[in-house]
Every structure is written in C-alpha cells, then in structure tokens.
C-alpha cells in the first residue's frame, strides 16, 4: 500500500487520485514528475548515497528536476539549517551518526517542498534519543502544512498521530 501511495507501484484494483488526477493513467515520465513534486521519502535505512556528502545527497532531487545550480546551493544551505546540520554539510554518511543521517534524509525529502511526506519506520534504526529528535522534526514539518504519512511498529509514536490505520496481516483493522 505504501508503494502504491508513493507512486512506486500501480494498484492491482481500485483507484488512486492525487491532486484530482487518476495516477493509474500516468506514464513513466508523468509518474516520476508527480513523485518529484508531491512526495518526499524517509526510509528506515536512510538510503543516502555513500559517496556523496550530506549536502550532495540533499541536492539529488533538485538535480533530477533540473533546478539551476545556484538555486540548488542556496536551498541546500537552508535545508541544512532547518535540520540543524549546517556544520555537517561536507560529511559523508559514514561520518554521521544515525540521527544525523536520518535528518539528512528528511532534508532531502523536503527539498522539493512536497505536499506529502512518506516515512517508513523512520526511527526503526535509531536509538531512542535520536528517534525522539526525528519525530519532533517530522511533527514540526506536519505543522507546516505537510501531510505526514508514517509507517511504524512503535505504539508510542503511533499514538501521537492525528489519524491511525492499523494493519494486521495486510488487512485494515480499526484502531
């Protein structure tokens, strides 16, 4: 279901409308554009490219979108300040802590200013303190009119959500 919402997979049945558009009718280029402009991803295992620095990882979605270089640099600097990592811009993922890595991933997810942020177990690979910081950051984004859709096995985090959908063995059950 996460993959379908993320426009990474097509629904086998039913209909998915995003911004009043039936996404099942979109071709590869249109789907890629829709993903780029509407959806940000935060993964459990961060998925940063190891050879790039924090700043370069954050820049990737803008490179794919063809944003001019000067604007990219400026927006990356702002994003690093937003996740409080301005002093880690030139560090590669293996030089960052788990919490810092996830904050870089959040900065990357938000760099195209998407309406929806999909977070798949964002604290699943972090210690509790780092997890709390990440949740605080995500909640802050949610307060800035970003729809946050999070998958978690952590009941404590789940209880903080405005709306919960519980999945048991692939079936939706009431909260």
């Amino acid at each position, binding site marked *: 279901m996460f993959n379908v919402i993320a426009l*990474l997979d097509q629904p086998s049945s039913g209909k998915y409308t995003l911004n009043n558009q039936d996404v099942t009718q979109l071709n590869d280029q249109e789907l*890629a554009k829709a993903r780029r402009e509407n959806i940000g*991803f935060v993964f459990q295992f961060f998925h940063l*490219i190891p*050879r*790039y620095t924090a700043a370069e990882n954050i820049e*990737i*979605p803008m490179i*794919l979108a*063809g944003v001019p270089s000067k604007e990219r640099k400026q927006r990356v600097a702002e994003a690093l300040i937003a996740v409080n990592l301005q002093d880690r811009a030139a560090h590669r993922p293996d030089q960052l802590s788990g919490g810092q890595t996830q904050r870089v991933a959040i900065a990357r997810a938000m760099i195209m200013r998407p309406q929806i942020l999909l977070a798949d177990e964002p604290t699943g690979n972090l210690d509790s303190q780092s997890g709390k910081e990440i949740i605080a950051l995500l909640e802050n984004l949610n307060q800035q009119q970003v729809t946050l859709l999070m998958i978690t096995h952590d009941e404590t985090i789940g209880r903080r959500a405005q709306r919960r959908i519980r999945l048991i063995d692939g079936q939706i059950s009431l909260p």
Partner: protein
Amino acid sequence: MTFSDTLIQSYSAIKTQPVRVLLIILAMSIGIASVTVLTALGESARLYIVNEFEALGTHLVIVLPGRAETTGGHPPIFGETPRDLTLADAQALFRSRNIAAIAPINIGAAPVSTKGLERETTIIGSTASLRRVRHLNMAQGRFLPDTDTNKILSVCVIGQTIKNELFAQQQALGQWLRINDRRFRVIGVLSSEGQSIGVDFDDMVIIPVTAAQTLFNTQSLFRILLEAKSKPAMYKAVDEIKDIIKARHDGEDDVTLITQDSVVKTFDDILMALTLAVTSIASISLAVAGILVMNVMWVSVSQRTSEIGLLKALGATKRQIMYLFLSEAAILSIAGALTGLILGKATLFILQTVYPDFPVYLPTWAVFAALAVALLTALIFGVLPAKQAAEMNPVTALRRK
C-alpha cells in the same frame, strides 16, 4: 537533469571504482592503440609508395609492347606480343610536340666482371634521356652521352653497389668492365638511390640502348619511358603516341600506355583498401573491449541496484537513469581512447626512431575516427546494462542492500 549534471553524476560514480575503471581503460586503450598504429602504418605505406611514384614525375608515360586485346591476357608486362616495339618506334615518337624526353629501355641480366671479380647483375640499355625521366643523380663522372642513338658506344654507368662490389675503394671512372664478351668503359657512377618502386639502381649497369640490343641479340625494346612537357600535355601525348605507333604498326593499335597518375591512383586505391582491411581486423580488439564495457556496466548496475531504486523514488525517469549509465560507459571509453591514442603515438614514435627511413604518419581523420569508434562502442555495448537499470522496478530495487 542537464547534460553537465549527468556527466558530473556519472563521473562521481566512476571515481569510486578505480579497478573497474582501469580494466575498461586498459582494454579500450589496447584496441584504440592497435587501430591507430595499424592505420598509421597502412597510411604511411600508401603515402610512401605514392610519393615514390610522384618523385619520378607526375607526367611520365610508359609504353609497353602489346595489348591485353592482342595477347589475350593481362597487359603484357614482359613484352610478349606479335609486334615488337623497336628503337625506330621510339625515335618516331619525337614527332609529338608534347613529349620532352624519350628513354627507350632494354633490360637483361648478364655477368659483369673486372680484374677477376664477377657479379651477375641487371643491365639496362637506354639513352641520355633516362637520367631525366627517372630523375637519376650522379655521384661521379657523367651519364650516357647524348649522341646518335644508333651509334654503338662502349661506355657504361654503374650503380653504387656495383661500384663497391667490383671496385671497392678504387677509382671506378675510366676502368673497363666486361659484360658477357664485351668491354665497356665506366664513365659515371650513380649516387645511391636506394630501391625505387622495386627497381634497385644501385645494383645495375646502364649501357647505351644499341649496345644492349647487340649484347642481348634483340631488336625489340622492353618498354619506352616518356616524359611529357606538362600534365595537360601528357594527355595529348598519349593520343599522339597511339596514333604514331598505330601508323607504324600497319594500323594496329598494339601498345599499352600507362600514365604515371593512373599508376599512382591504382596503388593509392590498393593501399587504401589494404589500410582499411588491416584497420578492420584491428578493430576486433575494440569489439572485445566493448564486451568488457558491457560486463563491467552490468556489474555496476547490479551493485548499485539500491541507488537506482532511490533515484527512481526521488523522481528520476527511465531516460535519466539510462543516460546516467550510458554516460558512464562513454566517459570510460573516451578515457580509454585517449590513453590508446597516447599509447599508439608512443609506439609510432618508437617505430619512427627504429626505422627512420620509413615515414610514419598518423592521419588526423584516424584520431577522430578512433574517438568516434570508442564512443560508439561504449554506447552500443553500454545500452543493454543501461536499459536494464532504467527498467528496474523501484520497489524491488529499494529492497536490495
């Protein structure tokens, strides 16, 4: 994604795989170096031969006795024909106003001896005009005198090899040489010419044509060499020669005329075809390099599956992924091609140092062709792995570690 961004991204990926990079560069550079060296050698041979011919003058005409039509086979190089070319035929050609010099040629082999030393060598019978027509230079003395062709003079001009073999450090001028049972006084020594289109003037004795006819007991000529006054005059001379000989041979058109430019063109064509054939054989190594490019790109795609999935999740299109991998292959191949060109140039430099007499020349078109072929090889062999990356399912790809 802009073109420069694609290149930058590809380059950053390449940097992380030095062994892979070295392998591709090595394979591609060997292919390009072999193509470059063989093309240069072929092209140099072509230019060498063409220059050799052109050094003889660009308005030379060769008259051979017989025709393909009259002998029923190939043009009669060795003069087997029902009607011979004679000295009178050669003299008659002076009627053409477009001819500057005529050198009738008789050729044979005979033992040459002096003071107990003997050597079997080639004897050429001709006239004073041979020097002009074949651009021969004298080291000592003078060439055959410009006297009446019919007069039998017992003089000869020898090449450097004959001079060294028979006279060593002694003075050759004025000495007597015995050719068969006749004696000839040495009046000149040719300067060393080396081999000129298969004819070694260093190992020859040149005697007056009438003396050669007597020596070899023949009235016929091997061929007649003519130098036209100019290139346009050469074409007029060809027609006039045909008419003159036809009139002398009872209306029979039974000589073959070869112009210098047609010989040059024929050699040019043959050697160009040879160069291309050799280059094509060498390009097999490029195909091998291409297969290596494909293998290495496949490994790269396999190792970066998760990255491909991430790029797709972040909004990369199939085309962008494909271009990323293709440009990687292209960058590696171009780097290999440039290394190959340097290797090739170095090899040619060594060859030129070892064989200074043979001019080695790498044509500019070959350099550009090598780069273009390397790029094309990369694109052809890189397209399958790149397509595989582009078609990858992002969900499955993201799950891969």
